């Protein structure tokens, strides 16, 4: 937990020597608390104080990064609820493959090619968990590595793991898992290969005990498997670990959490467990089931939960060309909330029909929300039409309003007296039909 300026001041020499460039130690402490200066500017601070200050500056949930050709980060979170600030590092979505599976290259390369676009962003699976289940583990890791650059989680016992680690040397994988029975050997492996180490227990007391013993052996990057035999138990533990780290600054559990939704037993339950893991603080999620439709739903959920609530996701207001519009093409009005924009743009694009999309500045709100908040009214729409000089683009002075704000058409006629105001459908999905039937 970050120290206050006064707490930092107590750790400083309090001699007001000014060598740091500030008139007093207190002034320097305040700057330190605000993270505007480095402690190294003070030549006289004691080693003991340095250690205490460094510890207090460490994030309450350690940032753990798995590395291969790409990186997956988890941890560094600061709040329990997204509205309090934001959630930062999106949980990595991994897919489990078994070493005994002869189809590894085909399966993994298929999953690795998966890309889905959501409001202009491309999402993929983040990595693979390779399980040593009796086959040739090194060969399996190599087979996965031959078709993907993404980071790996290696699951197995201390006998199997070294061959897998050798097969991906130079990377930072995660080893799974240290338990009370094997923690020493696991910690040695993690230290030797500079891997992150998952630590597993059904009891938080034991988990905290294990992480401290493992840390004493020189392993810093740990990830917690909380066990839990049902959704309620897992939610309780995940909440407790997050709270202990954030509210009590309890270092032994200040690590990201890994979840295995496949433990639910069936693919339909796995999807539900995965949704909970994403919403409730998992840093890594390992799926047993990969299907495009499930990946899409979970990737969008993750994006939604991890969107910064303080910054509405928006596009630049302006006039957008869809399917190379000519002067004959219609002008459709919408708002600059990016989900709204992409819903409308995708529908029009998919229809193959050309159109001008007039994106009004509604402060990043959707049509209905902006209308309710007074950010998408006749005045604003008229202003956009004039500002973006829509009249110069189209031969017919006609604009189409979203159906949800049909009520604005009267006022808009007053604002734009020489324009024809048409009311379109409420939902973007109905736009193509409307454009074909009503606008010709």
């Amino acid at each position, binding site marked *: 937990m970050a120290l206050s300026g006064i707490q930092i001041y107590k750790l400083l020499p309090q001699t007001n020597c000014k060598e740091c460039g500030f008139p007093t130690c207190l002034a320097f402490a305040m700057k330190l608390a605000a993270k505007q200066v480095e402690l190294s500017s003070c030549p006289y601070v004691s080693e003991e104080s340095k250690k205490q200050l460094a510890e207090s500056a460490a994030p309450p949930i350690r940032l753990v990064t798995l590395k291969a050709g790409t990186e997956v980060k988890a941890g560094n979170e600061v709040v329990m609820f997204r*509205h309090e600030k934001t959630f930062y590092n999106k949980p990595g979505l991994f897919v489990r493959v078994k070493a005994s599976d002869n189809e590894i290259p085909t399966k993994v390369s298929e999953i690795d090619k998966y890309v889905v676009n959501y409001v202009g962003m491309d999402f993929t699976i983040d990595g693979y968990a390779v399980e040593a289940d009796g086959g040739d583990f090194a060969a399996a890791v190599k087979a996965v590595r031959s078709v993907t650059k993404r980071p790996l989680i290696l699951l197995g016992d201390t006998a199997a793991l070294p061959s897998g680690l050798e097969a991906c040397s130079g990377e930072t994988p995660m080893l799974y898992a240290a338990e009370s029975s094997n923690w020493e050997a696991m910690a040695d492996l993690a230290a030797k290969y500079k891997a992150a180490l998952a630590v597993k227990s059904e009891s938080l007391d034991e988990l905290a005990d294990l992480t401290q013993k493992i840390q004493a052996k020189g392993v810093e990057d740990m990830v917690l498997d909380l066990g839990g035999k049902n959704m309620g138990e897992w*939610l309780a533990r995940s909440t407790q670990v997050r709270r202990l780290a954030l509210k009590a600054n309890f270092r032994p559990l200040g690590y990201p959490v890994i979840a295995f939704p496949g433990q639910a037993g069936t693919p339909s339950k796995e999807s539900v467990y995965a949704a909970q893991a994403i919403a409730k603080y998992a840093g890594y999620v390992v799926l047993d089931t990969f299907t495009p439709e499930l990946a899409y739903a979970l990737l969008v959920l993750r994006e939604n939960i991890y969107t910064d609530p303080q910054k509405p996701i928006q596009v630049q207001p302006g006039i957008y060309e869809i399917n190379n519009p000519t002067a004959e093409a219609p002008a459709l009005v919408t708002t600059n909330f990016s989900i709204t924009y992409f819903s409308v743009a995708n529908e029009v694009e998919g229809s193959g029909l050309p159109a001008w999309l007039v994106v009004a500045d509604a402060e990043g709100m959707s049509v209905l929300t902006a209308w309710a908040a007074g950010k998408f009214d006749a005045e604003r729409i008229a202003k956009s039409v004039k500002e973006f000089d829509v009249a110069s683009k189209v031969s017919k002075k006609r604009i189409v309003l979203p159906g949800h704000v049909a009520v604005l058409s009267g006022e808009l006629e007053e604002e734009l007296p020489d324009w024809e105001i048409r009311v379109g459908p409420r939902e973007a999905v109905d736009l193509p039909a409307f454009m074909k039937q009503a606008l010709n």
Partner: protein
Amino acid sequence: MPIEIPKDKWPGSVKTVKIGATAAEGGTRAKTITVGGQTTMPYLQFEAPTPNQPVVAIEIKSRKPEDWSQLLGETWGDAMTNPVQWAQKAEEAGADLIVLALTLDDTPESAVQVVKTVLGATGLPLIIWGPGQAEKDNELLVPVAEATKGERLVLGICEDKNYRTIVATAMANGHLVEARTPMDVNLSKQLNILITDMGLTADRILMDPTTGALGYGMEYGYSVMERLRLAALQGDAMTQLPMIVTPGFEAWKAKESKVGEGVPGAWGDWRARATHWETVTAMALVESGADIVVLRHPESVKRVKEAISELMLG
């Protein structure tokens, strides 16, 4: 070394609301549903037990909806043209409550008749929605409320434009109301204040903070619900109402559920995707404090109910 688990001690709690009335209570329901009463954030059983399990309602309509996804049509079949059969199938599918939505084609007479026949066909408590146009809602809901006096139906949907008539008839006839506001904590509070100021007691109000589907603004509703629940626990009386949300309506409006053709290959199988869309939307809202989720597809109902049962175990 045993760890001391930090526990939140809240001064406030969510009010309990009972939906439906049995014969002994002046209605005709075989059972009633009670929601609310929480003294913690959702499902944190280590702080305090969740006193009433959140429930799942299935939405049916008085007439066959023409704009519903073909997938829903395949599932419910001919029952969609017959509210009695539809209600019975919904009950078989595991609904704890039935939402019966009236349409613009209904008349006061047909509305009363359909509500009464559905009441006769199922012993579950009912939520009755008007078609969603203020004047028409009033025209239909008032006679329905009068004809079902004492049933403790939930009447909706009250918004700032049309709450007065609905609240008045709910008070006069022993019903409840659903109060909806567009994803804003202060607007929710304000409408709850207006409704309680008319004299309807808080144990007869469900608040609907509105949600978006997964990918369509769901996170706004999610955070508004978390904030409302936190405010309730902190002791703000006008946020201490159980929450009802409509992930079924929202998810089945999304292109991902509605449309099977002409969509990107990365969207995968349509049927499975549609179920995921409804279920994942609903699950996120369950985690953020929903007391009643209104769904449309039986498979989503099954998944969400199983998940809620597991969350109750904690």
